[in-house]
């Protein structure tokens, strides 16, 4: 966190201003844009989680999409097969993913640096196959359809009554996601500024020094893994609600890489940077797509921007350039990661 010149009051003021802006934004944008902005909130939550683990505790995860998958399927299975009201499944999805994070975190204690990167990458690549195989639970390749179900608030298209006001379905998703993102943002801030956050950062910077100062590495690393997975699980749950269905393709292998890209971009500015990271990963494809209609853009730009692979090209180039041009300076994320290398 950039403690710097920003005082406590200023930071709370900033948060209030951001909250206010987010609260009134749907009045000024189209319904469709509101649903895109809901995805920004969802990515914010997932990237916050990844940042707690990778940015603050120095444990790399290339497979955070896996925890989103677990959260998303928890919600879908409960809503579709058991008729549980969708709102209740959101915390449950967080808890299930958190438990999965704990279970993965325990063996991960023995892996550091590159080995952890390998193992988590493997989880990301292999999980869709497991989801397809567990057909009885997950619906296999067909997935699970939420659209039109009674236990699904708004059924995917109807207006939703909230506090006596009627919101369009997309506005409802927007407010739901941003409310949860706001709560989790404050939670992350509170956790990271206190004793736990100090322990996380101490582990990241030097595990040996942290341990000799009385920080229990095993306990805090598994805590970071669980907390981070909980965030991803909540994000996955909202992702499922926003998509109106889940299939193995809803959570592709590249989702984990997308989150990492978001976290690297986010590194530019502490916890607040997460918002920038989430906006970047959600809107980059949209902006590129829009370029093809801009008259002022050169012909080749208009032509190229229609190609399907171009967003990936920019994502990849962004990752490379951020690390090349700001070595050690990407919001300190890289420096934080630097603490890992010694443990290899």
């Amino acid at each position: 966190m950039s403690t710097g010149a920003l005082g406590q009051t200023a930071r709370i003021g900033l948060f209030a201003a951001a909250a206010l802006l987010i609260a009134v934004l749907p009045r000024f944008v189209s319904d469709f844009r509101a649903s895109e902005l809901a995805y920004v909130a969802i990515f914010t939550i997932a990237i916050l989680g990844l940042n707690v683990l990778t940015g603050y505790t120095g444990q790399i995860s290339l497979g955070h999409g896996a925890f989103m998958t677990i959260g998303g399927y928890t919600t879908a299975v409960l809503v579709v097969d058991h008729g549980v009201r969708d709102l209740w499944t959101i915390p449950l999805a967080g808890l299930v993913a958190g438990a999965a994070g704990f279970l993965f975190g325990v063996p991960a204690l023995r892996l550091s640096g590159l080995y952890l990167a390998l193992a988590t990458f493997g989880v990301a690549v292999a999980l869709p196959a497991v989801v397809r195989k567990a057909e009885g639970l997950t619906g296999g390749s067909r997935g699970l359809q939420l659209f039109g179900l009674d236990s699904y608030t708004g059924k995917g298209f109807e207006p939703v009554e909230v506090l006596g006001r009627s919101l369009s379905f997309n506005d409802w998703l927007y407010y739901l996601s941003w409310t949860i993102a706001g709560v989790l943002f404050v939670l992350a801030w509170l956790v990271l500024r206190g004793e736990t956050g100090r322990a996380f950062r101490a582990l990241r910077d030097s595990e040996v020094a942290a341990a000799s100062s009385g920080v229990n590495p095993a306990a805090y690393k598994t805590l970071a893994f669980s907390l981070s997975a909980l965030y991803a699980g909540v994000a996955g749950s909202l992702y499922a609600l926003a998509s109106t269905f889940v299939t193995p393709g809803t959570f592709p292998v590249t989702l984990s890489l997308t989150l990492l890209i978001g976290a690297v971009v986010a590194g530019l500015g502490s916890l607040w940077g997460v918002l920038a990271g989430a906006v970047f990963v959600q809107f980059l494809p949209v902006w590129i797509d829009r370029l093809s209609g801009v008259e002022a853009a050169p012909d080749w730009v208009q032509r190229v921007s229609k190609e399907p692979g171009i967003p990936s090209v920019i994502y990849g180039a962004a990752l490379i350039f951020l690390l090349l041009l700001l070595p050690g300076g990407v919001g300190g994320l890289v420096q934080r990661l630097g603490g890992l290398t010694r443990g290899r």
Partner: protein
Amino acid sequence: MAEFLQQVVSGLSSGGIYAGLALAISLIYRATGVINFAQGEMAMFTTYIAWALTEHHGWSYWPAVAFTLLAAFVGGVAVERLIVRPVQGVSVLAVVIVTLGIFVLLNGLATAIWGGAQQSFPPGRPFPVRSFDVGGVVFSLQDILTVATSLALVACLFGFFRFTKAGLGMRAAAFNPAASRLVGVRVGWMIAGGWGLAAVLGAVAGLLAASSLGSFDPNLMRPVLLYAFAAAVLGGLDSPLGAVVGGLVLGVALNLLGTYVDFIGADLRLPSALAIILVVLLVRPAGLLGRASVGRV
């Protein structure tokens, strides 16, 4: 029994492909202590180059392959010098992130240039479709030549490292960069050359993977990369011989598991590879043939 032997041979064939990519990963790990997550996508990209030359530019197969291998070498050197080298000093994980950037970039680039659709890789090339019947066991020529190519490649590489001056320089640069520099080895270029060689190995693995499947798309190497990781970890990340042995063992093991264990079938091959990675890393991180690393605190 005949079926068992057939499965072993076809397992060796896919194992040869894993071994090629695993060897590439192991070479780079040994020289620089990092893992190139883009190794598979680089191989996919070079496969597209070979395909585009034959399909769109009227080249015949073998010249296209030769050009592709050359392009792979140049590409590998360029990636090391321009992209990886500058972040090498920052941290190992900065390199991981940069290689993931290359991964995403190349995948997008291939899709943008050649489209995301399946392309058929002309059958019969590079190896004619033919099979032999040896006492009731049918071996396909494709499988046998795939294994033979992988083994020949390993032999060439061994010869290169053992008997040539450049090979000696590369070994020296990896073993002790400071001392090598003192005796006049150009360590930087040796490491870049290592990345070039790794890219060539990957390119061969990509071509073999495409021709054994008969078709390919931009995601050709994604599963192969995980198998190659599993092979390299199984054999010991820092052991090139281990990578080859690991690849062949993994290919055969996955094939036999897929054939004889109904639950695994074709669906759970990737998760099985992941399980192998996790078990080896947790139980014996040095793998079968690697050296146990000793950390200093």
